[in-house]
């Protein structure tokens, strides 16, 4: 091994695909491009991100996204908190689906330590994850149509309807955990809060309400010619590019890759049930929209299937869940694992044996699906017009808390 080697030693081949780092100087000088800045505070950037667009008329010649306006240094913070203290921190990453964030982190620790999770807790986790997926996709649907339909227009109406269902879901979570938004209910080895009396009935009632309203949404979206016109053939990400970029979840499945970690690397109780994976092949905005809508149906089915069969038993395999030093990570052990969240593969790379006598991780790296989705923007935007920017961005569904961490 020769260390260190220098930049000059490295000669790499040119990538075969079109490079988005196009030098504008080499373009036709008479093109007279206009640079326009979307963000960091823009109604349709889903948080604080910025895209710099070079426009020829309204046609996008080059797009450069910038992120980091919400960089809160969480990975640094994680290095000085113990494993048990980390759960409420990761709630704030993907703030649209906090439950799956907690789950990803704790499943990573459990798999690293080889801890067994009781069956009851695994069932609860599965149900929670699927309800959270519905809530997250509902919010996505609302904001997506808000982007296409306008904040003063039909999109706003649909957003209000989706929030009606989302409120019902948050009520169910509040019943379970006592919190409305950031739950802190998962822990290493299981759950903190047991199923309260009447919770399954409440979940069934909520699921019935959501299922009853699904045709309403489908009629407003599939049945709306303007939405179909705006989304078909726009923002195409082909299969190869999607894989190279590391897209995951609905974005990847919309590009024709049949990969779902719920089925391929089962966590919680997904090994006991069958998950029908929704796949589309076009890779455009419509395909991503379609995949998410079908996933909501699938989630409703899974919740219905599991809610009556929650087994009896303990909810956590670890005894003192509230002692911060209860769990220690083996020093020097490195481990990567991932679960499927509503946005895709949320991975956690852990190196054990850090501060607090080994109870804190030495290094914790999250693999956020939204960051990969955002890195598709320079490829997907070029050649489209300004109105397509919001449609493409909305269809990729990035959550900036997760992108920037």
């Amino acid at each position, binding site marked *: 091994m020769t260390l260190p080697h220098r*930049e000059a030693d490295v000669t790499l081949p040119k990538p075969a695909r079109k490079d988005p780092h196009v030098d504008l100087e080499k373009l036709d000088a008479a093109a007279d491009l206009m640079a326009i800045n979307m963000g960091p505070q823009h109604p349709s950037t889903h948080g604080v991100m910025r895209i710099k667009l070079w426009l020829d008329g309204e046609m996008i010649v080059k797009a450069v996204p910038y992120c980091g306006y919400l960089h809160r240094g969480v990975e640094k913070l994680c290095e000085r908190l113990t494993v048990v203290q980390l759960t409420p921190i990761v709630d704030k990453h993907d703030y649209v689906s906090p439950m799956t964030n907690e789950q990803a982190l704790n499943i990573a620790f459990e798999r690293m330590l080889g801890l067994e999770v009781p069956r009851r807790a695994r069932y609860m986790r599965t149900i929670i994850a699927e309800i959270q997926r519905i809530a997250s996709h509902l919010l996505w649907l609302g904001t997506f149509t808000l982007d296409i339909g306008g904040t003063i227009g039909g999109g706003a109406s649909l957003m209000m309807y989706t929030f009606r269902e989302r409120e019902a879901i948050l009520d169910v979570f509040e019943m379970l955990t006592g919190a409305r938004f950031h739950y802190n209910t998962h822990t290493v080895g299981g759950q903190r809060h047991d199923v309260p009396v009447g919770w399954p009935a409440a979940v069934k009632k909520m699921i019935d309400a959501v299922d009853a309203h699904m045709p309403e949404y489908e009629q407003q979206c599939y049945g709306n010619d303007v939405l179909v016109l705006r989304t078909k053939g726009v923002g195409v990400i082909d299969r190869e590019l999607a894989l190279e970029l590391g897209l995951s979840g609905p974005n990847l499945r919309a590009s024709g890759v049949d990969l779902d970690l719920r089925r391929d690397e089962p966590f919680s109780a997904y090994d006991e049930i069958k998950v029908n994976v929704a796949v589309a092949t076009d890779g455009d905005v419509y395909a991503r929209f379609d995949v998410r809508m079908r996933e909501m149906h699938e989630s409703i089915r899974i919740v219905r299937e599991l809610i009556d069969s929650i087994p009896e038993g303990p909810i956590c395999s670890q005894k003192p869940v509230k002692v911060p030093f209860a769990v220690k990570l083996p020093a020097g052990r490195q481990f990567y694992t991932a679960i499927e969240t509503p946005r895709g593969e949320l991975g956690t790379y852990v190196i054990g044996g850090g501060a607090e006598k080994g109870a804190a991780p030495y290094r914790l790296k999250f693999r956020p699906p939204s960051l*990969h989705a955002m890195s598709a923007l320079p490829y997907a935007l070029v050649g489209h017009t300004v109105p397509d920017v919001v449609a493409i961005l909305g269809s990729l569904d990035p959550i900036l808390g997760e992108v920037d961490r």
Partner: protein
Amino acid sequence: MMSPLPAPVRAALAARWPEVFPAEGDLDPNGPLVPADSHYDLAALLKEHGYLLYVTVVATHFPTPEGDTFEVATVLRNPSTGKAFWWRCKLGADPVIATLFPLFAGADWQEREQFDLVGVRFAGHPDLRRLMLPEDWEGHPLRKSYAIDTPHAPWR
């Protein structure tokens, strides 16, 4: 989770790097340690064998009494089987490693992030700028020598 490599991939790797990937037995559960020179070639070989999905890259700072060392772990996933694989490269005090951008477009932003936060440079990267922090920021926050509350004007 590290899952066993399929036999053809294992054979190809063993033929190329016999000291890292022995033909028999388990691999290092922490991820096999590959020479930094072979980083790009290994990724290219894995991509040929179906590891098409770029998952992530993780750089870590290990301060030692002899001087700083760095480790860069790269994770790839095979979309047809859904199984992930990762390997590590050890770097010295002046960390430079080949970029994977020609193979995987997603490496662009991931490597920029690791450059920003840890300070590992990726040779051959077309646009190696800071991703998260302002471009005039000093230091790399995820190095162990960087205090979490490092002063920054005017707030602390």
